[in-house]
């Protein structure tokens, strides 16, 4: 390789490495702020701010969904199946994928009493697709961890 080209190559490699390292540092510094939601253990353990707009996420605990007969009010518990649980209140229409055992994101405010008042409910789904006849099983705890990216 001619010296001129080698010099250009070196400059470009340095430019690229410099840009890459700066981006990596920014991402590492932002780290947890880049998460789109607070997982249950942070909501319960005080890692999530109180009385501000945040998003929290978890799996809908089996048997925890309670609806008021005369309205759209609904209450349910989000869990990580590892001991951290919190209650969510919501008034409105739930997404089609909302069901027990489903990964759910809620946007709203966490009260100082540990109860989450949601203004929006979003459903998360995983990358496993299958026809209905293959899907006799409800999501197990392994998929629960996948949904919340707990095994990362």
């Amino acid at each position, binding site marked *: 390789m001619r010296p001129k*080209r080698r010099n250009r190559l070196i400059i470009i490699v340095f430019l690229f490495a410099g840009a890459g390292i700066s981006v990596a540092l920014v991402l590492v510094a932002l780290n947890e702020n880049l998460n789109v939601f607070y997982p249950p253990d942070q909501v319960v353990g005080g890692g999530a701010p109180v009385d501000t707009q945040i998003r929290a996420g978890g799996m809908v605990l089996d048997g925890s969904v309670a609806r008021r007969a005369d309205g759209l009010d609904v209450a349910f518990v989000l869990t990580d199946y590892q001991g951290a649980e919190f209650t969510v209140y919501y008034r409105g229409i739930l997404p*089609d994928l909302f069901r027990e055992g489903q990964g759910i994101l809620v946007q709203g405010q966490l009260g100082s009493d540990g109860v989450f008042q949601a203004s929006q409910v979003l459903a998360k789904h995983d990358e496993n697709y299958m026809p209905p006849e293959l899907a006799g099983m409800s999501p197990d705890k392994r998929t629960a961890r996948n949904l919340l990216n707990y095994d990362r």
Partner: protein
Amino acid sequence: MGIKQLWHRLGSPRWFFEMSRRWPLIFGGLALLLLLTGTLWGLAFAPADYQQGNSFRIMYIHVPTSLVAQSAYIVMGVAGFMLLVWRMKLADMVLSAIVPFGLSMTALSLFTGAVWGRPTWGAWWVWDARTTSMLVLLFLYFGLYALRQAIPRQETAGRACAVLALVGTINIPIIKYSVDWWLTLHQPASFTLTEAPSMPMIMWMPLLVNVLGVYCLFGANLLGRLRLEILKREHSTQWVQEVVTSGRL
């Protein structure tokens, strides 16, 4: 033909133009065939999903367009690198030829994502790491387009675009690993060649066909535009004038 010889020939737009005469048509035909098959198969014949019902089918458009939008950017990064180090004319032409295709695929990926997100997530748009980094990719494509328009001198414009393309490739691993590094609403990858498919074959095959189809479309589009770009930039040379007057395009 040895690697070294190929390398030197790539420096000659004329050689490339003559060699690639049939390629756009071949790739285009393949793309049409594969995309028609895959899309029909996926949208009409593959079974519905147990959870999402029919709305999961938008994956057959969303996944291939997202993949090829990123691959196109990587090709631009490589071309940018070659332009900066070896000052290869063809690399600059590749840089400008890819932008419209990459831009449209990224836009299509974001659009189908929104259409898919509305019924499944419950929102058109959520600012999570995956969606945001994909939006950054769209802006990078816009930036490359604008940068070339903004600099009148071709050589300078090419180098500026090369630097932007090269530095922008840093975003590609961020898009890919965003769903692993951070908590996101977006699910992990539906289509990888390194792991067992996350769905039964009957759902996966149409996806594979469409992925291959969209890559053929990329090939056809890139080569067609590249040939056009060669004619435009070399228009004053004798061989281009001969090609044009003889009608042997």
